[in-house]
């Protein structure tokens, strides 16, 4: 129509933009981990000076870690926990982007969650879902988070984050189609005795 300019809004809907932003944020804190005993999966940069959290079944002593930029670096195991399938690795690096850690005790059933990992070698793949169930609680925060979210083996050790992009769990296994993740508060308790950058491990 002459004299009439139609305005096309080319911006993505707000929700798409948010999801993209959360994904980008998570990709910057997610590493690939190749354990010396053959395990492979993902890991989370927990502290900027090189503390990586992953699953014990991925790596628990030495491991080759591929940082988000593609740089490969050797990591050494600091501690591991068989009950929660957790391992802490240290690598010589400074100023890495580190996870913004959320409070897993405040999760509600139905909350939106996002996972990033390297399923089948596809680096930085994102999946979205919701919290499936909380508990049954033995002691506060001690049970795995269950999420209605699609995971693949390469997601092991990678982050599960809330709608703000805060890491609230470490993806650990797939049971009956559900994603099971170690709550961030359990990770914090596991890391506390290490006194690794004690100011930020709380």
């Amino acid at each position: 129509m002459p004299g009439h300019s139609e305005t096309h809004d080319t911006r993505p809907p707000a929700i798409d933009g948010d999801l993209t932003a959360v994904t980008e944020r998570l990709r910057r804190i997610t590493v690939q981990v190749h354990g010396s005993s053959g395990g492979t999966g993902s890991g989370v940069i927990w502290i900027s000076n090189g503390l990586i959290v992953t699953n014990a079944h991925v790596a628990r002593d030495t491991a080759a870690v591929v940082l988000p930029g593609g740089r490969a670096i050797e990591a050494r195991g600091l501690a591991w926990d068989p009950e929660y399938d957790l391992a802490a690795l240290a690598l010589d690096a400074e100023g890495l982007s580190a996870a913004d850690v959320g409070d897993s005790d405040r999760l509600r059933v139905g909350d939106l969650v996002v996972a990033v990992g390297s399923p089948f070698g596809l680096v930085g793949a994102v999946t979205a879902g919701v919290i499936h169930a909380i508990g049954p609680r033995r002691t506060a925060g001690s049970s795995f988070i269950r999420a209605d979210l699609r995971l693949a083996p390469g997601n092991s050790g990678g982050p599960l984050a809330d709608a703000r992009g805060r890491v609230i769990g470490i993806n650990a296994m797939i049971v009956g189609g559900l994603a099971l993740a170690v709550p961030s508060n359990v990770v914090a308790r596991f890391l506390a005795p290490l006194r690794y950058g004690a100011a930020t491990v709380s």
Partner: protein
Amino acid sequence: MDALLSLSNDLAAAVERVRGAVVAVNARPRLPSTGVHWRPGIIVTADHTVRSDEDITIIAPDGRTVAASLVARDPGTDLAVLRVHDTDLPLADLGDPGSLKVGHIVLAVGHGPRVSWGVVSALGGRWRTWRGGEIDQLMRLDLTLYPGFSGGPLVDVKGRVVGINTSGLSRQLELAIPVSTVTRVADELIDKGHVSRGFLGVGLQPARLPEAFRRRLTGASEIGLLVVNVQPDGPAAKAGVLLGDVLVALDGAPVGATEDVQAVVGARRAGSTVTATILRAGAPAEVSMTVGERPSRRR
């Protein structure tokens, strides 16, 4: 992150809003199913999960176990109605399924609560289940119905119940029974103990119509339905239908399979009239029949 955060908050609030009306139903070995507090003291669940008629219990959201009795069941729509006494559970908020659109985000809620999310994958019209029940609207979901989710509510992002989920009506598809069907069937089960289905009292068998007959009946299908049994004193017998008549149309619509007859008659109320076009000794005739009620099958 406002939009994503607000969706997350809405989904969690929807679960919070419905969870008080969601119970576990113990009516089969090992795997409890889910039920919804539909009317005061009335729990609706999926019929295929109610294996036993007695010793049924429900587990309230607060963990209390309460005895329940089976009011009635309708395998056709895969719905069963239970009664519980002295319940202070809140009632489910029933939504208007008419407001639901393909692509809307929905949650399936199991007892616990446990949830899965997804979208409304397809909506269709009225359909008949393989067990013969009449469902007002086809609601196909793209989400996972985890073990024990059957009988639980499908809720919209506001936490309003828009259907009852079941894996008992299709092996391939995740389906929900819309609120209108659940309410209609539950009310009928409570009032009468069964769901009435219209019935003519004839046994029919498909038979190919000779070309000469078909030319005389415009719009008839190639197949007619040969009357091979007439129930004494049934609606067809009262209308004068005879063995050997061939049914070709009901209310002007051609019938080429027995399912066509069930679709027309099953949905009719007892007492309504249906006009049958028949071939008798090669000549077309119209017979008016009063639809009867299918006698309930006692188990």
